């Protein structure tokens, strides 16, 4: 039996997180027309630590909360919806890899929020660090590998102007000989699910944003949502959101059950969710018209994040190749 709706307990976890984010990290915190200060991301990360979110799926004896991939993936959706920095997912992954390696104290520091982690992404032979701040640990997902690096593995950080204004970006070179932990295949799956989850969350967010706007914005004497050109775009957003969510949750459950087709389903989820996120955030801008092109609307933040997230798992090309290699059900 495969059940893709949250049960009451799972819904409670989601609601708690959504409540926290709505309260402490509402989208309104993002001044869409300005770059977002690093400190603000740090605050959100601290709030999430307070809720124990980075250890949500770790066993209690490893300092976690004892939930599983299903709950964690549902939470990733909420983080995507609120455009939480991906460093939250990085902290989750770093804690898990450290716990796997028997380095419980370091894991606890991440879970408790006294240490933070960030993602890296390859840029030729160099690397980008995403929302690096004072992160103690760096998570790199590339090909079939997930690797945890200590901050010391990064050379000097050169700040660059990022596409996504809500996140700082630096160039550096990771000394790959200095890996702290090579993550297990299970951690790779977890990373892919967390990133795909953020893509699904922002896809759902822009679907709702576009539909809301189409109901209130009037042109030619009626709400633009009455026109098929807009209505049908909204319908396509709904299809994208529904398919991306369903595929993600199926993949999360398959991963949790360690089904033979889990890798296939998870790569399919990253692909479907990323295509959905990039297409939907683009259409949301078009539906918003002129206002959607301005920095004052938040529409652009979602588009930029959909591009950023793609590179947290090494790009769509790598997903396609992994998907073709994976064994289907």
């Amino acid at each position: 039996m495969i059940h893709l709706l949250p049960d009451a307990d799972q819904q409670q976890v989601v609601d708690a997180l959504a409540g926290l984010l709505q309260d402490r990290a509402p989208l309104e915190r993002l001044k869409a027309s300005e770059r977002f200060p690093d400190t603000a991301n740090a605050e959100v990360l601290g709030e999430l630590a307070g809720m124990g979110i980075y250890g949500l799926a770790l066993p209690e004896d490893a300092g976690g909360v004892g939930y599983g991939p299903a709950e964690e993936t549902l939470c990733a959706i909420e983080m995507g919806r609120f455009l939480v920095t991906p460093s939250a997912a990085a902290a989750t992954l770093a804690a898990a890899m450290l716990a796997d390696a028997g380095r419980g104290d370091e894991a606890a520091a991440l879970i408790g929020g006294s240490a933070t982690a960030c993602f890296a992404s390859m840029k030729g032979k160099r690397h980008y660090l995403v929302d690096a701040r004072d992160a103690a640990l760096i998570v790199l997902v590339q090909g079939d590998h997930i690797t945890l690096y200590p901050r010391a593995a990064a050379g000097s950080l050169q700040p660059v102007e990022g596409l996504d204004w809500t996140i700082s970006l630096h160039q550096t070179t990771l000394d790959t000989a200095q890996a702290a932990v090579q993550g297990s295949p299970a951690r790779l799956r977890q990373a892919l699910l967390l990133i795909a989850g953020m893509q699904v969350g922002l896809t759902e967010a822009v679907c709702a944003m576009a539909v809301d706007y189409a109901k209130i914005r009037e042109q030619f004497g009626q709400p633009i949502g009455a026109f098929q050109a807009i209505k049908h775009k909204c319908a396509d957003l709904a299809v994208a959101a529904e398919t991306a969510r369903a595929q993600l949750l199926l993949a999360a459950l398959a991963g949790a059950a360690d089904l033979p087709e889990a890798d296939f389903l998870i790569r399919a989820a990253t692909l479907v969710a990323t295509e959905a996120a990039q297409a939907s955030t683009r259409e949301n801008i078009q539906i918003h018209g002129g206002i959607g092109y301005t920095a004052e609307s938040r529409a652009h933040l979602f588009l930029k994040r959909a591009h950023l997230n793609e590179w947290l798992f090494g790009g769509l090309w790598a997903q396609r190749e992994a998907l073709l290699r994976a064994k289907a059900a």
Partner: protein
Amino acid sequence: MELRTTQEERLFREKARTWLEENVPKEPRPPHGREANDHDRAWQRRQFDGGWAGLSWPKEYGGRGLPLDLQLIWFEEYARAEAPEATNTLYVGLNHAAPTLIASGTPEQQAFHLEKILSAENVWCQGFSEPGAGSDLAALRTRAEIDGDDLVVNGSKIWTSNGHYSHYQELLVRTDPDAPKHKGITWVIGQMDLPGVDIRPIRNMAGGDHFCEVFYNDVRIPLSSVVGKVNDGWRVAMSTLGFERGTASMAHQIELTQFVENLIDYARDNPGPDGRRMAIEDDTIRSRLAAARAETSALKAITLLSISRARRGDAPGPEGSITRLFHTELMQRVHRLAYDLTGSGGLEMEGHRGWSRQYLEQMRQTIAGGTSEIQRNIIGERHLGLPRQPVIAKGA
């Protein structure tokens, strides 16, 4: 949210696999026409006799009353066994007519028809669309006047799949021409061999004659054949359509998954459209194959989401149109990919394994049973709550 395999599921899967291994027809199913129908009926009868028909039908109507999860397992094993297409000429009877009779039929109608549908003794077709109405189903004009104990039907229907070898028809007729468009319609069981019924096959662009046009000239149908109440046919029909748009196409989806895997195998072993290397080595083909694989998985996933909603007790809603829209457009993408894979071989009607013909046949997906445009309207208006499109009354 959970995924677990129960003992019941495990046992069911084993039994299904064993039975299918022993019973799947060896000969290939003819691609279309009456030969296909004969094949479908023989195969359905064998499943019926083996106790594998109507798995999720309620027990009191001859089914086995199993949950949709087991139905899904059946289709999975069915596809694995490379059994003949499950979405066949019996689809209307099994997936439209029977659910309608179960939901709205009289005990007499149920007793007479349901088992005969399940055992493929009777073949059913649909009689909803009309030449002038198209996507505007409710604009139907086929008249039925009450005369004594009969309805006297005059008019015509179109796009009646398999009409020329069907025994019965789900027939929508207008019984009150003065009522608003959606009122005054009645759902009635039409018998195809009644005097005054004239059935003319319509050839489709792929050369098959899947569809028919049906003409009614003073056809007398007893009032006892009305399903639901007179003038309540729109509601009765909509409940059937809701069913179709939900989980009924599960078998189809699983077949599509298998088809995509076949494409990948083909691409590994055969030159691509450029004629210079194996198709899989062409990145444009690779990329389309990867997308097809991911999207057929997502199609199955949204169906599992529908099943989950059904399990919670939700009635089939407009989100069924999401499944339908995604499914039909994906079918077309996948079959266009198959067509392109064969390169100049696509100049032949059958192409490789009939892929050219299938490419043409899939053109109907985004048209029949409500065009993609209509599905997007439904999603926009009923699911997302966007305002209805403005309509100018005729002559305005």
